[in-house]
């Protein structure tokens, strides 16, 4: 087997050195009833070219986003990732290194994480950021728990504009109790979350641009929350938006969590992605996840280490802020490289281009008779109401080669109010021809 270095002769030599008759002897502690000496019922090992052929065949049964007009967003976005990003993250020294617990031979990863943290603080306008979470949804759940620890309160309000999957994850994490208030879906950007804040409220969770594409007034949310001693958790699922939209930190956010996939990371059917988490300096000791800090070595040279580990499971065990261990290092690297390539000028331009294409898409959709555009203010995503149920319409469009967006009913199957809604996104890759094809096909489907 190509991955196993030993010949049988070497195995025999090693057994002799160990003083064991055979490898089975090394498994002596395993109860015999549970010990298999013959292979399980699984296919045998296979040449690389046959494995590759099988995986290609499976891959060929999926429609790639690049195969035609594509407007799917709703928490994961198709952006162009420069070729250099994927090349760089495949370097052995990035790809096959472990968590940088030995800083003297891990300065590459550590310095990168320090740079990543700096980028996230600047994007979000916050003071500190950690070295990544699994993704935006789990980061949101962790932020909720963090807010509870910080405020020693338990009530949590989730905005009706929060991505339904994120809401579901929070619900699974904290349990379905009275102290978790999930406001009903607000596809028109409406919502009374601010009125619901009370003195037992630990935090309110507001997403912007929200799931339906609306831009939300964070300043008002922050003011209302702070007035009652609650925290504002801001969720961002399209991180590119921060190139054009005000930083949550500048508007009073206490914790910002985000999905970083849009930068550096391909869609990959939902993962791996990279969760971002940033907060105020004073809250750092309640933050989950790894943190990289600057220090010096014995010669006084600048260097970086993982720090404040007394928050973490490997030191604090049951008293840790979270159980998170492995996070999204390589996705954070991809994010950081892509953002490093863009820089401020590039990110602003990219965000503008996304917005421009979304404006074109919105105008084109709004012009179709029978279709109602629900968004007045948006970044690169929007919701439209069809005169017919959305799910079969999207399927019909897929048959015509167009991936037209997400029928909201897929995520909110029990809410009749959303049955006719589609969430659509445009990015820098959306062309005029794509939009024209969508409009054409939609008109056909609606006819």
């Amino acid at each position: 087997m190509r991955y196993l270095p030993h010949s049988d002769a070497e195995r025999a030599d090693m057994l002799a050195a160990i003083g064991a008759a055979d490898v089975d002897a090394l498994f002596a502690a395993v109860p015999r009833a549970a010990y298999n000496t013959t292979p399980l019922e699984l296919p045998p090992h296979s040449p690389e070219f046959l494995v590759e052929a099988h995986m290609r065949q499976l891959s060929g049964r999926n429609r790639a986003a690049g195969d035609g007009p594509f407007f799917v967003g709703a928490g994961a976005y198709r952006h162009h990732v420069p070729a250099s990003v994927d090349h760089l993250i495949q370097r052995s020294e990035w790809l096959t290194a472990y968590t940088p617990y030995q800083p003297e031979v891990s300065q590459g990863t550590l310095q990168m994480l320090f740079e990543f943290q700096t980028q996230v603080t600047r994007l979000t306008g916050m003071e500190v950021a950690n070295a990544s979470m699994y993704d935006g949804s789990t980061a949101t759940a962790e932020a909720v728990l963090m807010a509870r620890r910080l405020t020693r309160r338990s009530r949590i309000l989730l905005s009706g504009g929060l991505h339904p999957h994120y809401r579901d994850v929070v619900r699974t994490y904290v349990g379905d109790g009275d102290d978790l208030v999930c406001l009903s879906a607000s596809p028109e950007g409406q919502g009374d979350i601010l009125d619901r804040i009370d003195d037992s409220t630990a935090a309110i969770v507001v997403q912007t641009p929200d799931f339906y594409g609306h831009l939300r007034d964070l300043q008002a949310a922050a003011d209302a929350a702070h007035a009652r001693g609650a925290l504002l958790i801001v969720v961002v699922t399209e991180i590119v938006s921060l190139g054009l939209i005000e930083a949550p930190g500048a508007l009073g956010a206490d914790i910002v969590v985000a999905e970083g996939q849009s930068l550096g990371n391909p869609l990959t059917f939902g993962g791996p992605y990279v969760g971002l988490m940033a907060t105020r300096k004073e809250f750092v000791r309640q933050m989950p996840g790894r943190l990289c800090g600057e220090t010096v070595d014995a010669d006084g040279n600048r260097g970086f280490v993982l720090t404040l580990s007394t928050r973490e499971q490997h030191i604090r065990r049951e008293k840790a802020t979270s159980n998170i261990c492995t996070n999204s290092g390589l996705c954070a690297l991809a994010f950081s490289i892509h953002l490093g390539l863009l820089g401020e000028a590039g990110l602003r331009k990219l965000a503008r281009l996304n917005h421009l294409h979304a404006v074109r898409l919105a105008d084109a959709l709004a012009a179709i008779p029978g279709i109602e555009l629900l968004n007045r203010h948006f970044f690169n995503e929007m919701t439209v109401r069809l005169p017919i149920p959305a799910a079969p319409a999207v399927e019909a469009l897929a048959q015509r080669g167009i991936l037209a967006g997400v029928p909201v009913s897929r995520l909110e199957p029990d809410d009749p109010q959303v049955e006719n809604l589609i969430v659509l996104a445009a990015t820098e890759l959306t062309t005029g021809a794509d939009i024209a094809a969508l409009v054409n096909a939609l008109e056909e489907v609606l006819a």
Partner: protein
Amino acid sequence: MSMNREGRPTGTGTVASAETSAATSGSALLPNEPLLFEIGDTEHSGVDLPDVEPFESRLGGFGRKSPLNLAGLTEPEAMRHYVRLSRLNYSIDSGMYPLGSCTMKHNPRLNEKTARLPGFADVHPLQPLSTVQGALQVMEELADWLLTLTNTTAVALSPKAGAHGELCGMMAIKAAQEARGQGHRKVVLVPESAHGTNPATAAFLGYSVKSIPARDDGTVDVAAVEAALGPDVAAIMLTNPNTCGLFEPQVIEIAAAVHAAGAFFYCDGANFNAIMGVVRPGDLGIDAMHINLHKTFSTPHGGGGPGAGPVVLSAALAPHAPVPFVRRGAEGLELVEHAEEGHLGRITAFHGQMGMYVRALTYMLSHGGDGLAQAARDAVLNANYVKARLEQVFTAPFGGQACMHEALFDDGFLAGTGVSTLDFAKAMIDEGFHPMTMYFPLVVHGAMLIEPTESESKQTLDHFCDVMLELAGDAREGNAERFTAAPLRAPRRRLDETRAARAPVLSWTPPEAAAG
């Protein structure tokens, strides 16, 4: 130098500032690299985009007014920055990485290639299911392999890492206990030697953690478990093979006792590599077990992730698996995305780590059932070989028995040398090796946990053992300086961790000079 219970030095006080080694200040092949923010500025960019003519925005009043201050690099600058930084890292590909409990095995590049096929990498999680049948089939095939390898009933693929899998599995246990009307069970048993994520997970879900002591031989005594069990115990979290590198010989009896007491058996499967294809955990009586695809199934560690931690579940827990999951329907594969009766809800947006599924499945297909078992056997052989060779000098706390995939030593052999486990580890760097896991598990003083994995050749193991024995000999001959001053041949000497934690600098700010 003060030591804590595990024998870990708490400061960097071991290091006298020695004469600067040549390598430290940067040379042609080991450069010193400034920070991104020291190279780039807000004007430079390595991405060309079409020019945007002015248009009427729909941002309302929400436009960004606060500064971004993001440094940009042109592409040649970026390439160099990240290549230079990377050269400061050790990696599996550049040498043996014997971190115990981490399973740093070879990461086949075929896996990277298949994961990048457009039908996997360029597919959106919310595309119509009719357009992603191949992706669902990957999930189904991966699930089949995991179920066969573990002899269990169901698998939750979506956990994003081992600890997330623990959370998922323990949530399923909690749900099952509640479904049984046993929601009042608030205690989880965790052996002393457990990984930190185990107690952290239990606590995360509101359980209180009761510690189970280890026997003198490093394994758990069924009697100790029985003594701890009671009507308040919801579950035990037991690692098997355990973190001392030993197979728990009484695991079947423990499972029986746990079940008899109305509790569930969560097995930490981080060490599954030792037994994959050889022992099916379902045959041992486990109820839930996560499998770190980034350990056992070779998806790359990536400097700290991403991973994937699917959890297999027994028949008792299967009804409490979280959504989503794949099932066969009339029109092909279906994805169940909303919790039906009893099921847990989502533990993550979308459907989990597809990129890792593809890699792990590719790895499984490459090995086949025979290859996986052989890999496990080679992993165990390698660990025992290292153990046998090092035992000449190194002190093995649980010495008599064969180990599984990793060999555990304590710092007994360093007694009186003035050399700590940490010092020893740093000296390994100077000799070309990444250190083993240190000071874990906590049950052993100055622990050195060495996991070679099946990927290391005998030649490499011999070289490693030669170096380790030479170092040990030198330490015992009184050359403490070689250790306390180490490393001298790395890009950095020892870093001041106390300083880092005392006044944390967690992001870059421009130096006063520039600001003022």
